[in-house]
């Protein structure tokens, strides 16, 4: 059992939770928040890079030890081969790059920005590593919810709100139709 599988999702989620809990002491310390968030994204990228090169094709991680027995699989799994781990790694690298870009781009940035970026990263990683279509849908929605919130990051302007509503409704309809496909 390779502990890197759950860590690649747990690290950004825990960092996001910690940033949210510590938002009052970190009120004016924007550099610290940015540094912590970028460090978490880099850590995920390194873990996924390691998974990409060191896993043999088709290595599987079963959560909570629910291993399949007798051809019946009840449980949630992550699978990694060079393609999907590499794709997740690309996502983590792009997320790091966009956080570094946002460091100067936004003149002022709230705690919520970093939290949303990290949950988005966790969603992307889980989406790439998910081992069955059911979990694929769940991770897709997790990723989607963070993405809708990030789209409407500047709610005082007209464009972001309208864009977020359009994006959320269109994307949700698409997700429900793909869920219909999974069901059938």
């Amino acid at each position, binding site marked *: 059992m390779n502990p890197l599988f759950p860590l690649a999702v747990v690290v950004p989620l825990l960092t996001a939770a910690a940033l949210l809990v510590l938002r009052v002491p970190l009120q004016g310390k924007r550099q610290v928040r940015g540094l912590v968030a970028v460090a978490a994204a880099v850590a995920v990228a390194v873990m996924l890079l390691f998974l990409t090169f060191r896993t043999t094709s088709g290595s599987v991680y079963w959560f909570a030890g629910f291993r399949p027995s007798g051809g019946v699989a009840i449980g949630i799994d992550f699978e990694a081969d060079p393609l999907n781990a590499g794709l997740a790694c690309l996502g983590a690298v792009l997320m790091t790059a966009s956080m570094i870009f946002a460091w100067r781009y936004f003149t002022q940035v709230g705690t919520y920005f970093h939290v949303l970026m990290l949950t988005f990263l966790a969603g992307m990683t889980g989406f790439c590593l998910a081992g069955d279509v059911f979990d694929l*849908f769940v991770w897709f929605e997790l990723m989607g*919810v963070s993405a809708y919130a990030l789209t*409407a990051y500047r*709610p*005082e302007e007209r464009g972001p709100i309208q864009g977020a509503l359009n994006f*959320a409704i269109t994307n*949700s309809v698409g997700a429900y139709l793909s869920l*219909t496909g999974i069901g059938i």
Partner: protein
Amino acid sequence: MQVFPFLVVAWIVAVGLYGLITSRDLIHQIVCLIVVQSSTYVLLLAVGYVTGGVAPYFFDISPHAKAVDPVVQALALTDVVVEAAVTALLLSFAIQAHKRFGTLDPHALAELKG
């Protein structure tokens, strides 16, 4: 397998999409999105239904008793949770739109014109 539940699913999707497209109010539009999603509950339960099956709680019945498929029920439950999150987020967007621009009409809100 019966055809009727699938016809109901198709009808709910059609009604929800029609409302979504023709709506002139954001709250109404979000409710229509929930209607589209509720079609997936009907579909999932219809897919997993076994004629004469009981609820899949193997506590006081025999483990070999005929029961409906619990996996799709878990999927439907996950679907409900996802819907709650998405709906809460969309309603907060609608509140922001009303607070900032004083309108809930998606056409009046439109700034980005293609």
